[in-house]
């Protein structure tokens, strides 16, 4: 069982790297969805298949983060006609290096955690930190509004993963609340992105700093 957990965690780390280098929004969204599905399965593996609590959390995560949110995001991609992130603030090569550095940093951080915080193993804490750092990287270095939404969601994936290491049993109500927040957040962002697109004909957030319309 532990080797399954490790395999999924390595897949999560690899997906972090993929998310940090891809320029296609559809790959980005699919990568996020697969990562969320893997983390949902991980929750089941860690808590055990006979726990009802684990089934609800995993099922909720799977339904919302791996199915519903990617569906809405894909619709937003089609409606705004923005398939690629063309002008990231940092080039994709640098961004891969930064993500790799992030993974290093994550391992260093995870090794410094107190023992009880990494009860479930060093790798899972490291994967959680790496996923959070990747999410941050996406948030900071990309200019398309949709990519930033995905960055936020990836960040949340990392937090969920960290919750698994830290608590093992987060209260059900809290987890459901977080999931609902994320879902509503993604839903609202989808609508906002569409409206930005309708008003400005693009979804480049760096242009949002100009307040007046007639200024370039």
């Amino acid at each position: 069982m532990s080797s399954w957990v490790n395999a999924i965690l390595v897949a999560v780390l690899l997906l972090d790297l993929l998310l940090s280098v891809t320029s296609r929004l559809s790959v980005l969204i699919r990568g996020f969805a697969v990562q969320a599905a893997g983390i949902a399965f991980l929750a089941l593996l860690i808590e055990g298949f006979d726990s009802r609590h684990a089934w609800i959390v995993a099922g909720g995560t799977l339904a919302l983060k791996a199915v519903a949110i990617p569906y809405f995001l894909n619709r937003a991609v089609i409606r705004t006609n923005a398939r690629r992130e063309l002008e990231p603030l940092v080039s994709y090569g640098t961004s891969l290096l930064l993500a790799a550095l992030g993974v290093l940093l994550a391992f260093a951080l995870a090794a410094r955690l107190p023992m009880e915080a990494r009860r479930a193993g060093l790798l899972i804490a490291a994967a959680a930190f790496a996923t959070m750092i990747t999410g941050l990287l996406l948030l900071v270095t990309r200019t398309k509004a949709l990519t930033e939404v995905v960055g936020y969601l990836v960040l949340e994936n990392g937090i969920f993963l960290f919750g698994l290491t830290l608590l093992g049993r987060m209260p059900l109500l809290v987890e459901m609340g977080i999931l609902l927040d994320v879902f509503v957040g993604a839903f609202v962002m989808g609508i906002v992105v569409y409206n930005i697109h309708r008003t400005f004909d693009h979804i480049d957030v760096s242009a949002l700093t100009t307040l007046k319309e007639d200024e370039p």
Partner: protein
Amino acid sequence: MTAHWWNALAVLPALLLSPLLLGIIGKTKALAAGRKGAPLLQPYRDLLRLLGKGAVYGRTATWVFRAAPAISLAAILTASLMLSAGPLAAPLAFSGDLVLFAYLLALSRFALIAGAMDTGSAFEGMGASREAAFSAFAEPAFFLVLGVLAWEEKALSLSAILGGADVASWSAKIPSLALAATALFLILLAENSRIPVDDPATHLELTMIHEVMVLDHSGPDLAFILYGSALKLWLFSAVLVSMFMFSSGPAWVSMALFLGGMFGVAVLVGVTESVMARLRLGRVPQLLGLAAVLAGLAALLLMAGGRP
């Protein structure tokens, strides 16, 4: 690792079967494209035909150009002595031979680059500079992979770090091993000028890398180069397959697994070439950077695995 006379047999599969790998790649690509394709043994026929021809030398070419194919092939042949083939142990093994292995391959490439520069043709100089640039990117990634393997087995000899897998430690190692194998596969594609990096079948000099470098060679010289690149492909595939070989089991099973793995790698290369387009030149360093990052991640996992 005791020295027996039959250890010398370990190079035989490489010597005899390496052109077959090219045949398998070609056949896979043809089948994927819905064509019938050249017969599997076509590379052997090409080699024989070229060996029967005479060589033509340009007026600007000096002895460097004439020596390049022979030096290149000799370096690769020496490197092939250090790899075991399934149950057959490598004829040459000592601590630190993995560095020699990597730099013998580099020597072979250097000979070809020097030969290409010697022709005085602009195209060949361009190919040579590209080949040199990409190999510079591939080298750190290759050493990271070798480092991961060496760390895992606590040894510095190729025969010791390859093929020593046992069932007990298998599941603990598999994440880092799989990452290192993926990285090595990317390096294999780059070092052997396969598709995402270079297109061996292209006819446009401007887009070639390895092929443009050997444009001026003809006859037996070209045969040496073709045979050398087939051998090099075999060597990289052998490292890749040997990473996963078990040390126990009867000899014929191990041999069958090894050869099956080699042909599997060839099919995998063929499939990769069928589903991917060649990358833009500027993106190749990114691909090799990815290989280095994957290998680095494998090393990281290995180090983390030792901790509580």
